[in-house]
Every structure is written in structure tokens, then in C-alpha cells.
């Protein structure tokens, strides 16, 4: 985001379109250094019963300013992948780089939006968003001013003094996104951030995420279970296989930019989603339930 600009902030009074033209050229895309680069990453968890391999031989490059969605069945190590990029988890073998720097421990250039908002219940929304700045040692006045700007960016300025338990689920996740943007990350990781929201809110949030991206041009890695969401938000969709996670394939989104809510219902998206869905079936561990059930009414749980 503003790592390459200097004084500009995402909440400048300029309109989004002006911002886009103002910021995009400033964001030099050096062709040589991808924003994120994973090379032969293997992550194995030692367990008492057996070694669980979450990711194996995973290689992936994400260009600066690119939006990449990661999709795959349960157990394909999607969340593990994000944790490796954020430096929360060291790969067993293989290398991880962010902006050409090898990742060793949580990287300040990377922002993480978790599946749950993870707000601190004892802080107001504003102080939650200001939290990363506080850890960074910014003065109270400065970090609160900055946090308020971020809250405006995600449309939450009026909730600044409310506690998390007074917010709706959607508002909480907005606050979490604002918090992740506080340190102006050049790479934003989102781990199924909208999975707890209802379908309509989720669509709206996806559109807002795109608006946010248009303003900031932050590189985004989005883990999701939703095929239409992946194709709608991302430039490329990376499909992972199940245990261990490997790249099964990469699909380009058929949509151009900028995208609007209408694109979510477009035939191009529907077609691409159908193809992707067919491809995903092959990656899952669970066999399709095409055999008749032994007993009618028997439970069909995955166990």
C-alpha cells in the first residue's frame, strides 16, 4: 500500500477513481521480484500417531498488486499456506519470500485477516484498530487518528467507541480488516474472512474488498471455500489438492477490472465456476457418494 507512496493514506479525500490513477503509477511493479514467492514448501506436523503433511512441494508466485484466491478441499493446507507466508509457521523444507526477502518470523509487510475477527473484547473498536500501531510504539494521539481514518475506510467510523460485543458479525470483520491494514502491509492475507457472514452481506463485502484493493493495490491472498467468490475477487485462482496440499492447477478469472456486483451473476463467471467445480471434484479425498446408502436414513457424516 503506502510503502511506495509516502504521505498519502487510503482515506484521502480524493475519490476512488482519482486515487486509482494517483496510486497505480506510484506502485512500481518490478517484474523480477514477486510480492510473494513460495518454492518447494513442505510443512509436516509431527503427531504422536503419524506425521501429518499439510503442504508438500508447493510452489507459487504472486505478483505485486495481484489478487490470488486459494481454494481447495478441507485438509488441503490453505490456512497453513497463509501462516507460512506470514511467518507464523516455518516450513519444514522449502523457501518463502515476501518482496524478495526470505521470511523468518512474522513480517511487518504482511497483514493477516483471520477467519474470526479476533478483536480484543476489552478494547473499543478504535483501540482494536490502533492495536498494531500501539505495538509499533506510535503515540496515542497519532495512532488514534490513524485508526479513525482506517475505520472510515471500512465504513465503521461511527462504531469507533463501541466494544466488540456491541458490533454485528459483519462490523467485527470490518474492524479486523481495518486492523490488518493499520501497518500498511504490501501483502494482505485473508483466511476465509467472510465465511461467517450471510450470503448477501458476503457479496457486498466482496465488492467492498475490491474497492479497497482498487484504492490500495495491496497484493492479496484470499483463502476461500466459495468458487464464485474466488473467481469474482481474484485475478487467479489456485486450486490445491487434499492432504498433502499441492497445487492442482491455476485458473484465470474471466472477469476484467473494475468489477461490480453484476459480474457476480454474469454468465462468464458461472461458466468458469462450473469448470472449476468439475476440476475440484478430482482433488478431494472424500469419494463421491454415488453408491446407495446401506440403510435408508443412515447418517452420512464424513466420519
Amino acid at each position, binding site marked *: 500500500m503506502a510503502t511506495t507512496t509516502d504521505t498519502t493514506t487510503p482515506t484521502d479525500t480524493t475519490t476512488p477513481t482519482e486515487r486509482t490513477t494517483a496510486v497505480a503509477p506510484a506502485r512500481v511493479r518490478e517484474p523480477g521480484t514477486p510480492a510473494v514467492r513460495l518454492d518447494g514448501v513442505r510443512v509436516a506436523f509431527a503427531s504422536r500417531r503419524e506425521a501429518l503433511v499439510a503442504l508438500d512441494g508447493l510452489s507459487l508466485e504472486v505478483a505485486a498488486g495481484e489478487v490470488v484466491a486459494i481454494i481447495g478441499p478441507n485438509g488441503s493446507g490453505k490456512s497453513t499456506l497463509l501462516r507460512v507466508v*506470514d511467518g*507464523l509457521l516455518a516450513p519444514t523444507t522449502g523457501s518463502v519470500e515476501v518482496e524478495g526477502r526470505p521470511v523468518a*518470523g*512474522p513480517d*511487518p509487510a504482511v497483514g*493477516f485477516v*483471520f477467519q*474470526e475477527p*479476533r478483536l*480484543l*473484547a*476489552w478494547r473499543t473498536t478504535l483501540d482494536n484498530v490502533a*492495536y*498494531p500501531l*500501539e*505495538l509499533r510504539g506510535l503515540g496515542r494521539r497519532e495512532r488514534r487518528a490513524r485508526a479513525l481514518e482506517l475505520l472510515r475506510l471500512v465504513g465503521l467510523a461511527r462504531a469507533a467507541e463501541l*466494544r*466488540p*460485543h*456491541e458490533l454485528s458479525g459483519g462490523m467485527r470483520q470490518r474492524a479486523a480488516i481495518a486492523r490488518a491494514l493499520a*501497518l500498511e502491509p504490501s501483502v494482505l492475507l485473508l483466511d476465509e474472512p467472510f465465511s461467517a457472514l450471510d450470503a448477501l452481506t458476503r457479496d457486498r463485502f466482496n465488492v467492498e474488498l475490491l474497492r479497497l484493493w482498487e484504492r490500495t493495490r495491496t497484493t492479496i491472498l484470499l483463502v476461500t471455500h466459495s468458487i464464485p467468490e474466488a473467481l469474482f475477487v481474484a485475478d487467479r485462482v489456485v486450486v490445491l489438492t487434499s492432504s498433502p496440499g499441492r497445487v492442482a492447477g491455476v485458473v484465470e478469472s474471466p472477469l476484467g477490472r473494475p468489477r461490480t456486483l453484476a459480474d457476480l451473476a454474469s454468465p462468464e463467471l458461472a461458466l468458469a465456476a462450473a469448470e472449476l467445480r468439475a476440476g475440484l471434484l478430482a482433488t478431494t479425498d472424500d469419494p463421491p457418494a454415488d453408491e446407495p446408502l446401506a440403510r435408508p436414513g443412515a447418517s452420512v457424516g464424513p466420519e
Partner: protein
Amino acid sequence: MTGPRASAGSPLAPVAALVGAAVIFVVAWQAVVVAFGLQVFVLPPPADVARRFVTAWTDGTIEPHVAATLVEIALGFAVGAGAGLAVGWLLARSRVAGLVLSPYLVAAQSTPVLALAPVLTVWFGTGLLPKVLICALIVFFPVAVSTMVGFRSVDRRLLELAASLRANGRQRFATIELPAALPAVLGGIRVGVTLAVVGAIVAEWAGPDKGLGALILIAQRSLFDVPLMFATLATIALLGIVLYGAVVLVERQLVGERG
């Protein structure tokens, strides 16, 4: 952590309920005295106790004893709660510490600390020290256990958030672990402060010279002043309520509403 506020109705409703309960208590007390024709040395009527309560406070009978007991409670509570916080935190932090210390903790808790009062008097005499020790011992356990539970139950996901934001150890403690553990810790302190009162009173029985516990014995055995004994009991009860209320106030200030 605090429950929903008193639902619909006048804001004075809780006050009315409190006063009502107090009236019922006093009336029942009087009724028992009258119904069974009880003598003053068995159970004095509430009016006698109230009168003695006032005179004991105005003629300087009770004041030095309250002061002595308060000092014991304050010191004992400070030592016991301080040690409880430190050990509880250590137990939550270190698996080895938990393994090594747990048996002693459980043994200490299973031993009635109050029964140690005579032994401590033999060891340390009848001065302030054994009383403070009894207080401290009795406060220690609930504070240690609740602190351990509080720090152990800190949401791991919040710790991961702190790690992702590159918080150092001190920051993680101050911004995540401590505030997350605080409600549980204060719950233990709430229990501890009332136990501190019990500890102080019982410790005074072992070496009776000063304090409210001593005054109970003096009133009963030397002065044959049963109303004074009950007035002392009332003072002890009030002391407990005030200390408990103080902790609740601190709790409200520190924890507030978290939903």
C-alpha cells in the same frame, strides 16, 4: 463478565430489596428472641445489639481492635495475593512448575490452615507475624488457582494475533494475557479477601490480645457482655462486606463490560 443490568423497573428497586431483606432479618431475629423467651446472654434482641454497637464505636471500645484486625488483613492479603499471583502465573507458564508445585498446593489446601494457628503461635509468638501468615496462607490458594486458570485459558487465537503483529513478550503479557486473565484473577481475589477476614479473626483466637477476634472472646468470657460480642460480629460482617465491595468496584473499573 458482568451480567445484564437489573432489568426493567425503578433504579431504586435493588435498594428497596436490600432494605426489605434487612427489615425481614431484624424482625425475624426479634421474633425468635420473643417466641422462645431467650435471655440476653443467649441471644440479645436486635435493639440491644444496635445500642451496644453504637456505644462500642463511640466510647472507643472497638476502634483499636478494628485497626489491629485491618492491619493483619491488609498485610496478610497483600502477601498471600501477591504470592498467589506469582505462583499462579508460574503454574500457567511452566509445565514443570505445575508438576512440581501442584502436590504441595493441593496438600496445603487440604490442610485446614486455621488449624495451623496454634502451631504458628508456638513458632512465632503472639505478635503480628503469625496472624499475617495465617491470612496470607488462606488467601494464597484461591488466588493462585484462579490466576493459573485465568492465564491458562487465554485464547490461543489472540496469542497468534499478537505473534502476527510481532508483539514482544512484555507487550503480549500487557495487552493480551493480563487483560484476558483478569476476570478470573479478580474472581479469586474476591474469594480471597473474604477469607482474609476469617483468617485474621481465627488467628486472633490463638494469641488473644488485640483484634476483633480477641474482642469476641473478651466480651464473652471476661466482660460477660453478650451484646458487645454480637456488636463485634456485626462489625466483622460489615468489614467483610466493605472489603468485598471494594474488590467488586475495582473489578468493575478494570474489567467493565465485555459482553
